[in-house]
């Protein structure tokens, strides 16, 4: 351990590393360099990619012997970047090499470094599997290493969309990946039967669920919608076991508002709506009464057990 740390003082600084590689490979080979969050990245011209990797391994001053990582990054219209991370166990330096693939988005290609580092073999196969980048000089990219062999498409490209996402919205209320035009998070109100899964059976179940749970369309006269109000009241009454008169009031208000809203809209639909809202309110009232009765019974039972209410007992 101390041996590893003792050789640290021989390590080259990022500037010296860049200088050395420019000297060995030619000025045109190194396109740019950046040190970001302590990670030193060198941009290499694509035709010098293989040679750069070989130099990094073989130059005694660099000695990047531990092959760490190789992957690609989608760069939108500009194509794909291939990135490799190298580490030197003797100097403790870390180097990131980055190059732009030739061939744009249609037929991206990149030289293979699997001759230099054995570990690059599978990493390049994986990158081909995920992005469709052809590595020239690789012993054999096919068959696909991770996905099913008859898989179609390159999953990690940004133009590959998840099918499940298309047929079924995010189950949560907030969608993390999508924003609307103003940059706000899109909020969804999931409804029963709206989101069938990818299979035929799911669709049948979803249809049945829709039939079993008729959802009143939100009709707004004053910005609020019937169901939301009802839901609010539901939440309030579900939140605690002890029901207060305030909850009842809220429920009644919701009902009143619902009928107000419904009255504004003419036609049979509105009547249906009103009916649904009234039914809901009625049911809730019944539930509340039930809960109150149960609570009272419990309290009475407690009192009996404890024997703390003698006069009640006497009355009984």
């Amino acid at each position: 351990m101390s041996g590893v740390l003792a050789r640290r003082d021989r390590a080259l600084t990022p500037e010296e590393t860049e200088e050395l590689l420019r000297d060995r490979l030619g000025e045109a080979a190194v396109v740019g360099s950046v040190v970001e969050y302590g990670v030193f990245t060198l941009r290499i011209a694509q035709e010098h990619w293989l040679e750069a990797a070989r130099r990094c391994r073989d130059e005694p001053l660099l000695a990047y012997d531990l092959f760490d990582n190789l992957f690609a990054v989608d760069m939108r219209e500009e194509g794909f970047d291939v990135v490799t991370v190298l580490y030197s166990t003797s100097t403790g330096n870390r180097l990131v090499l980055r190059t732009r693939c030739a061939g744009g988005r249609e037929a991206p290609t990149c030289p293979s470094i699997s001759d230099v580092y054995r570990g690059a073999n599978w990493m390049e196969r994986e990158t081909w599997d995920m992005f469709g980048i052809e590595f020239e000089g690789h012993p054999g990219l096919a068959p696909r290493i991770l996905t099913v062999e008859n898989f179609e498409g390159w999953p990690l490209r940004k133009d590959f969309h998840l099918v499940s996402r298309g047929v079924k919205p995010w189950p949560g209320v907030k969608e993390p990946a999508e924003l609307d035009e103003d940059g706000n998070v899109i909020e969804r109100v999931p409804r029963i039967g709206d989101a069938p899964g990818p299979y035929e059976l799911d669709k049948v179940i979803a249809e049945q669920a829709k039939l079993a749970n008729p959802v009143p369309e939100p009709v707004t006269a004053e910005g609020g919608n019937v169901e939301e109000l009802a839901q609010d009241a539901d939440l309030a009454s579900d939140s605690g076991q002890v029901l207060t008169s305030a909850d009842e009031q809220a429920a009644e208000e919701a009902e009143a508002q619902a009928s107000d809203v419904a009255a504004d809209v003419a036609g049979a639909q509105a009547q249906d709506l009103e009916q649904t809202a009234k039914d809901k309110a009625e049911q809730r009232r019944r539930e509340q009464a039930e809960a109150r009765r149960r609570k009272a019974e419990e309290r009475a039972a407690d009192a009996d057990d404890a024997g703390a209410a003698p006069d009640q007992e006497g009355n009984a």
Partner: protein
Amino acid sequence: MGVMDQIELPTPIKYVFNWGRKYSLWCFNFGLACCAIEFIAASAARHDFIRHGVIPFAHGPRQADLLVVSGTLTDKMAPAVKRLYEQMPEPKYVISFGSCANCGGPYWDSYSVTKGVDQVIPVDVYVPGCPPRPEALLESIMRLQDLIQGESLKERMERRRRDPITLAAAGVPERESTT
């Protein structure tokens, strides 16, 4: 099975027969992912489900009555699971252990994950959780034993014959392709 699935047994005999079956479940653990660790934990000393009459050391699917599919089923793996299930002798039971095996779980929107093991093989008991605790597996086994105790083997086999096991809509390839 011989005639057992052909004739309806008299109730007392059926009771004894089912009682015998439910406490000698040879279990094959198809450990796919995280949930397999909890399965092992359930079979180790602390939770010890052998006391429920489940023997977790079946040498292969051909010697097993119960298949516990624990973990994420991917499209690449699905044909192997189906083949394994087909190798088991009747009557056979399946426990789907964990959210991934039930419906895809946290990987529900992935491009390579099958949305539940029931797309491939029929399931008797589902255990929710990610991963479920070993206690949940114990409960699921007790549920399965209740199911076995109350069932008629003749009816089960008739149902099985009427409704061939796989859902064609799942789109799972029939056989594993050779590599």
